């Protein structure tokens, strides 16, 4: 009786696993943003196909072995009032050889399947049309350099689509400025680690425009969790537009703003809406906002504050005296959707709160609260809001 109960449970369990596998295939079609079963780039696609192949083989092995186990446990359970010992069997060379040789054959198949994808992805030749990106990991943000265009960006990687007729894959060289990180955008490729003193390589060739999310996949310190990563795949035209804008320095961009400096102060403005994912603590931001954030006078004063405080030790704004490289490049801050490597949406309110104290969003990040006055914080915000 008891034995039967047990075997029922084990039967259930052996059904549960295939069910879970079926669930994972369902997940593939639900295409959640980080699913490895919804590939949008050749490497991710090949890894996905390989994974389905391996899943099938392992599923069959599991069904075979667990089926035998369940059968043996039910069939050979002790019956009541039967105290005699069963016949003692010590082994059988033929049987043992068979379950040595069959696994060897399975492994040969698995290994060859793996090797094909491994070499085709890892040793792919770089076409002359490829886009080069240098990815530098920092605690806890990403720096992206486009050596072909002399552009430095942060946290949000823009790449063009690549099609079979006009292939334009993105070949990345990855390194780190401090500790180990790992670049992982599941829908585009598996991960590659970023190591200090070493350059690794990986490539992607996304075919569909869109935004792909990922994050750092190697523990790198207190804010490893919020070292988020976004890849914007643009159409070639959009990408060229983006690059053109990124190539402009703020000296060129600022000219019209300085002309606007005579426009009167439009008065207080409300802070922007909270980002959809904000924890409750973000509500405290409301108390900070005083000045008119995007007022041109404030922006001008903000630039003075920015350049005379410690900000420029870490941050660069192209075309100005700010050329720090420890923190993200802010030349085109307002072209990004997020702040703090995805810790918050890039709204004026969040920006002001971030400047006042980055720990509100990202406790443990390396940017300190500068303890400036509320007025100065608002002026810096106004300045940063002009960096489009």
């Amino acid at each position: 009786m008891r034995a039967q109960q047990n075997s029922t449970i084990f039967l259930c369990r052996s059904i549960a696993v295939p069910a879970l596998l079926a669930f994972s295939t369902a997940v593939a079609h639900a295409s959640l943003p980080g699913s490895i079963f919804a590939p949008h780039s050749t490497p991710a696609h090949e890894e996905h196909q390989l994974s389905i192949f391996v899943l099938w083989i392992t599923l069959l092995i599991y069904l075979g072995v667990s089926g035998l186990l369940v059968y043996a446990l039910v069939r050979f359970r002790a019956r009541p009032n039967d105290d005699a010992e069963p016949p003692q069997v010590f082994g059988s060379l033929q049987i043992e050889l068979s379950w040595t040789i069959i696994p060897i054959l399975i492994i040969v198949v698995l290994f060859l399947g793996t090797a094909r994808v491994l070499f085709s992805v890892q040793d792919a030749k770089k076409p002359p049309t490829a886009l080069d990106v240098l990815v530098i990991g920092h605690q806890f943000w990403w720096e992206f350099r486009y050596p072909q265009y002399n552009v430095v960006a942060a946290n949000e990687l823009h790449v063009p689509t690549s099609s079979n007729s006009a292939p334009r894959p993105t070949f990345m060289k990855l390194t780190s400025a401090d500790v180990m990180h790992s670049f992982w955008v599941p829908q585009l490729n598996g991960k590659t680690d970023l190591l200090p003193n070493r350059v690794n390589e990986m490539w992607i060739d996304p075919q569909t425009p869109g935004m792909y999310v990922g994050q750092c996949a190697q523990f790198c310190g207190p804010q490893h969790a919020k070292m988020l990563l976004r890849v914007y795949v643009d159409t070639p035209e959009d990408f060229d537009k983006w690059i053109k804008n990124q190539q402009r320095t703020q000296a060129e961009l600022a000219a019209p703003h300085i002309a606007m400096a005579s426009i009167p102060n439009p008065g207080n403005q409300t802070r922007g809406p909270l980002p959809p994912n904000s924890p409750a603590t973000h509500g405290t931001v409301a108390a900070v906002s005083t000045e008119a954030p995007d007022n041109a006078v404030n922006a001008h004063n903000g630039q003075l504050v920015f350049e005379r405080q410690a900000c420029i030790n870490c941050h660069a704004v192209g075309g100005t005296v700010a050329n720090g490289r420890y923190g993200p490049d802010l030349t085109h801050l307002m072209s990004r959707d997020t702040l703090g490597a995805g810790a918050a949406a890039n709204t004026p309110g969040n920006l002001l709160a971030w400047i006042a104290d980055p720990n509100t969003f990202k406790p443990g990040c390396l940017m300190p609260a500068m303890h400036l006055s509320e007025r100065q914080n608002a002026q810096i915000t106004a300045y940063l809001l002009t960096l489009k």
Partner: protein
Amino acid sequence: MADQSLPAGQGIQAGHGSETALDRTSAHGTYLELVHSWIVTVDHKKLGIMYIAYALVFLLVAGAEAMLIRIQLIKPHNDFLSPYSFNRMFTMHGTTMVFLVGMPILFGFGNYLVPLMIGARDMAFPRLNAFSFWVSAFAGLLLYYSFIGGVGLSGTGSAPDIAWFAYAPLTEKAFSPGHTTDYWAIAILANGIGSIGTAINIIATVFCMRCKGMTLMRIPLLPWLYATMSFLVLVAVSPLTACQAMLLIDRYLGGHFFDTQAGGSAILWAHFFWIFGHPEVYVLVLPAFAFANEIIPVFSRKAIFGYPAMVAASVGIGFISLGVWAHHMFTIGMTSFGNAFFTLSTMLVSIPTGIKTFNWLATIWGGKVRFETPMLFSVAFLFQWVIAGLTGIMLSVSAWNWQLHNSYFVVAHFHYVLVGAIVFMIFAALYYWYPKMTGRMLDERLGKWHFWLMVIGFHVTFDTMHFPGLLGMPRQIYTYEPDRGWNSLNFIVSVGGFIQAIAILIFVYNLIHSYFRGEDAGPDPWDAWTLEWATASPPPVYNFAIEPEVASRRPLWDRKHPEDPDSAFE
């Protein structure tokens, strides 16, 4: 009831009253004498029990840390723990479970059982044995002292927060100021010395202390696997100990082994750590196999199927496992040929492990399986081990590993190995040998509760945990974004964790309750066949009154079935 046919010698049989009773009453001194007798002991049985008790205490501590982790992850953007505390919790959880729970409890069983099963009076080096235990115990206390003495910011206590594999250069002074990383490194170093001492001891015991008639091919499988595991400890723990010394040189003497800012190498640490770290998995799992090798035959009422193949497979696992470490580093930037090599070597491990699994199956086949608690845990182990092995094969597929590496899929996989296989077999072993160690049976009814809650909790937690990994959730993150589809999965994982916690508390209650109220076990409660069941429960200090002499792998079978002795077939 003492079995008249046992080979343990007249001393035991005559004296259910005299000698065994003498042993029990000897503990009835003053409290101080009792404590003193445990502290100065060199008896392998007392040291074994101390190892196990020490590990169980840390199991509760590290389990509590796991619960804190699961509370934090129960919903996105939770602020139950700060990122700092969360990082300390998973670092301490991992380090504790591997170094202060897994290794000590398995060494404890080895200490207790190996001499008894080979008919020896004690380990080969009893004083080294005591030294190893106390060094390991010191290491554990040192690691946990960092909570008080680690001096974080603003003078509060702290703890290591560098993850259990402590990748360089995060551990360098520039990125880990303060002393918590030093506590971690020194604790691992001290623990390593203790482990190496015990490993030497087990090897010497198995190869030099066997009783008369016990040739190499008559050693029960448990001592065989412990010898293999000890060789692995010798080869694998030494580099770990060495790299802790190198790390300390970096941190205090201006060395640059791992200091990338001065030209050191981060990959060097990864190699050092994983050349320890992967064999370590087999250091932990081989004893679990060893328990299965003893328990499954007894409860199937059949001899182990294919003993020579089992020995060969275990030793084979030992050898192959030394050549697979870089499968933890498929994403670190090895060449494609490097990746291909470690893919193949890792897949090869599945051949000897497959042989073992099928031999267990064949042992059950044709038997008469009794489902008592030790066997229940062993059966669950078999199913879970197959799944753990298959997810292991998935991870060995290097091109897919680029996606799976460092995701929750990996976390689920290694918890399947460490909990589903190793912890389940540790529970099986405790239910199986507790009567030998204390003379009392563990309560079967509580055992069933423990088992079923554990199985349910385990599967709710760790089956579910694979999926956030497939959906892109990396490990070691203190919080996550709500729009990734991980929310309900993480909630289920946390709930399963709490169910397991309840199971463990029932188990702890059972351990304590049965020590005082348990049924009397007698020397051989399971009708088993190896030598430890030939002496009283608990065994007297000298183990066997006269040295046993064996003629087969199952000496007690021979005694119980003189009409059909194993010795006729070997």
